């Protein structure tokens, strides 16, 4: 037994129950970022989510993009970092940069 949240299994279960689901995955990090590459966040069509891609700093923005991905079916590659205006708004206070890939689960 392990206690780590299995984001992918949660996402697969949501999908099986007929919900629209998007999966966000950290694909690159630079500097000090709160969650390592491979960290995942699953979002359903109501905005309910499980997992994390940043420990809280950018989750809101990722969930917004995930809902759009569920609606239009398109994958997106998102950049967050100190040099990024959007990131300034959402506040990746740790000063790191992360790149997050968001895809709809078919």
């Amino acid at each position, binding site marked *: *037994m*392990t*206690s*780590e949240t299995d984001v*992918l*299994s949660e*996402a*697969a279960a949501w*999908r099986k129950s007929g919900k629209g689901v998007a*999966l966000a*995955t950290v*694909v*690159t990090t630079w500097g000090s970022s709160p969650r390592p*590459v*491979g960290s995942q966040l699953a979002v359903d069509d109501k905005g309910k989510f499980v997992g994390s891609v940043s420990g809280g700093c950018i989750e809101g923005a990722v969930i917004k993009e995930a809902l759009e991905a569920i609606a239009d079916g398109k*994958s997106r*590659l998102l950049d967050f970092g100190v040099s990024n205006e959007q990131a300034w708004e959402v506040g990746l206070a740790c000063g790191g940069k992360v790149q997050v*890939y968001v*895809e*709809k*689960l*078919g």
Partner: protein
Amino acid sequence: MKSATLDKLQEARAAKRPVALATNLRSGQQLLIYADGTEGDLCLDMDMVVAAGEALKTDEHLRFATPAGEVFVQVFNPPPRLLVVGAVHITEPLARMGALAGYGVTVIDPRRGFAESQKFEGFAVMGDWPDEAMATLKPDSRTAVVTLTHDPKLDDPALAAALRSKAFYIGALGSRKTHAARLGRLKEAGFSEPELQRIHGPVGLDIGALSPAEIAVSIVAQITQVRRGDS
């Protein structure tokens, strides 16, 4: 991600079969990469498939550029394992903390009544003798082995099996004196000095731990240091 890809991915994970998922971040096309084959609509050069296969062994995600766009390879290995020999007072907090840190925990104790305790509900428990349990569980480079019984009949065979394996961490509970005697016995059994240096004993980081939970913290911290640290 196509539903067929998600299903196959979940199938492999349920079967504890190592698998990597390669995604073209531009096109969204994906390829599942197993130790012995691939499946999916993303075309990759053979050397990239080989590199992804290597990533399964090192447990590290990969990213590389191709003419068709950046490709991200995410490794989905079964959880690393923590095999604990001895269902004693330290075992429960160690099993819990090991599980929290992401390990698949197995508790081994052949003594009647020890491992059957309700404290270990939810964990894999084996009532086999440690050498038999080790032969079944086959520790590998993603396995940590910790002995906690103080009883040479139980600890020594487990440590011998661990030393013959590629276990990334081997730890043995016991005072310096107990540990010196243990090393003496294993040396007589034919293990060399460098081999015996793989055993962390007394087990755990030296943080002055006293209670079972504190000792468990020191052990999980040491396992983490060995697995993630630079040295």
